[in-house]
């Protein structure tokens, strides 16, 4: 049985729903079953947001991932990645952006956060904001993170490209192209991180 339970984490407005939609579309290419629980409403105003995304080749029961069962935490913000560690399975991966989103006065010290992340047995840290800037599309850092986490999601690169094409389709070919570049840059950065 193939299943992939993913927690997407970030701050309202950082584009985690676009990541979820891209994975969802990529999964549909393989006719997988999926459930994806989103956060709408009050928390979207700069608050902590999360989405539970469950892919399987069999029917998915619960919309929420049970604690201790997530195969992947994909976070676009480092402190937000840590908020969901009770959901991570023993063999699960934590893949996070290292660029902080500081909109609270008691935001912890950056190095302390990264230290906690490094305590996780399986983790990847990427400066997605920097990579997105380098490729000339600072708004694509969420898709850089999708690229980085993609090797822990059992779907093909072609499917991910198709997913990106579908969710950005309305915005034109240029936007699709830059997001595919962002995806590939993230995937490469992850491989480099793991090689180190």
């Amino acid at each position, binding site marked *: 049985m193939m299943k992939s339970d993913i927690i997407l984490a970030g*701050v*309202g407005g950082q584009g985690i729903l676009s990541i979820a939609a891209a994975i*969802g*579309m990529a999964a*549909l290419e393989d006719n997988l*079953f*999926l*459930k*994806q*629980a*989103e*956060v*709408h*409403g*009050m*928390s*979207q*105003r*700069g*608050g*902590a947001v999360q989405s539970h995304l469950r892919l399987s080749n069999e029917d*998915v*029961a*619960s*919309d*929420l*991932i*049970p*604690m*201790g069962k997530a195969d992947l935490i994909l976070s676009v913000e480092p*402190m*937000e990645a*840590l*908020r*969901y*560690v*009770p*959901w*991570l399975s023993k063999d699960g991966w934590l893949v996070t952006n290292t660029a902080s989103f500081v*909109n*609270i006065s*008691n*935001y*912890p*010290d950056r190095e*302390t*956060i990264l230290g*906690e992340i490094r305590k996780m047995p399986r983790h990847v840290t990427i400066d997605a904001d920097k990579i997105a800037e380098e490729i000339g599309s600072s708004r694509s850092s969420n898709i850089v993170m999708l690229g980085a986490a993609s090797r822990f999601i059992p779907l093909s690169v072609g499917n991910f490209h198709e997913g990106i094409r579908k969710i950005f389709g309305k915005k*034109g070919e240029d936007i699709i192209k830059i997001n595919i570049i962002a995806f590939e840059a993230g995937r490469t950065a992850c491989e480099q991180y793991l090689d180190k």
Partner: protein
Amino acid sequence: MQKYLFLGDEAIAQAAIDAGLSGIYAYPGTPSTEIMEYVQSSGEAAEKSIHRQWSANEKTAMESALGMSYAGKRTMVCMKHVGLNVAADPFMNSAITGINGGLLVVVADDPSMHSSQNEQDSRYYGKFAMIPVLEPSNQQEAYDLVHYGFDLSEKHKVPVMLRITTRLSHSRSGVQSREKKNQNILNLPSDLKQFILLPAIARVRYKGLLNSQSAFIESSEKDGNNLFIPGSNRKLGIIACGLAYNYYLENKIASDLNYPVVKINQYPIPFELIQKIASTTDELLILEEGYPLVEESLRGFFDQPYTIHGRLDGFLPRDGELNPNIVATALKIAQPDFPNVPGIVASRPPAFCKGCSHADVYTSLNQALDLYSKGRVFSDIGCYTLGALAPFDSINSCVDMGASITMAKGASDAGLSPVVAVIGDSTFTHSGMTGLLDCVVESTPITIIISDNSTTGMTGGQKSSATGRIGEICKGIGVLPEHIVSVIPLKKNHEEMVKVIKNELEYNGVSVIIAERECIQTAARRHREIKVEPVKNK
């Protein structure tokens, strides 16, 4: 027939379109908002001329839907759970009038209060009104139960409630659509006195509703929405309502459970099915999202003592949303120790967007009130409720739509002076106008700030019925024109705003300060759309 990837809300919207909907009525409210939004953005709904404008509030929405049903058409009214409080009067009475065209009342509850001020369970309203209630467990059932619900409504000539919760509203999954139905033709009720609830008629209609109860129960028992699922382990029987069934299923698969189950998707409670499971199992565990409605009913049901577990005996928490882990604990499945969230992780509450006009309003209000003791600002439901949080700490109440003005009035009547009400534009036209009339009638000393961002902001920027009308409305209600003052909430206007607020605080009568600046989210969206326009036209 088509395969879609739908939020629960979207599944309900598409199902209604496919089932021959002629009009949807709603006021935005998380987690129900996306139902109307889907219909508004549907090309098919436009082609079919389905009515799809927001209403001023849930009461006007419910009444409009009842009128459309009177005219023989299928109609749906959507709201969040607390919206049903606003619509409770027409809702309760619609059960007595009955319907003509199929009428579906969709209510989205918010257990755990993700975006709400309480977690009331709308199934009680369904029971209170004595109408059938449908409760899907997944997106496909949500789609299917809309079709069934319209048929059921027209079969029994009553409104039918469809109850969902946040988790289903905002969770996406695959949905298979069905064959599309045409809209009903315009067709008035055969008895033109059906909707006149004069006591003599109402008594007859009420007896009719009471007589229909056995037919509602029969539909619950026989129509296939409530299922008995046999199981070999008879130590425990599971009664799982709506979404809670998924959490049982999750544990059943993970821990290889095999208890008999009654899956409930329709009320009145199917007591025959419950007798069946009770007679073959030692104990019962009731899983339901929301209040212990089924559990309470069953505890008084059996002639002999019978062990029932649920929210009332501590097997499940008394409040809050269920999840797979909570249900696992109730099923006595041992849970490992999960890693803790590191102590350094700080909570990140929602906050005003950068550049939000409400923030400028509170900065000025705080300074204007500096001279006075704390505790005189009554606020309302919307983004501006975030003025309760640091660094503003500006407000002292948030209770229900419109309560800012009337609570401030009551405090003023008690002798508190000055008093301030802060209310948004959409909330003002939802339920603030009548309270303003109360103030005008008594010349209450009150300063009302209408923080007008020209949208319904907290729910994502829906059209506000108030836009462009607030000044005229206040004048029409009778506020003196010299005490209707407009300001533009910007940092550069801070000193002027402080002065205006101070002046009005000193006035011994009704003042309205309209602080108008467009929501920066909707403004940004508008600018993006303008930029994209030329490309679209190519």
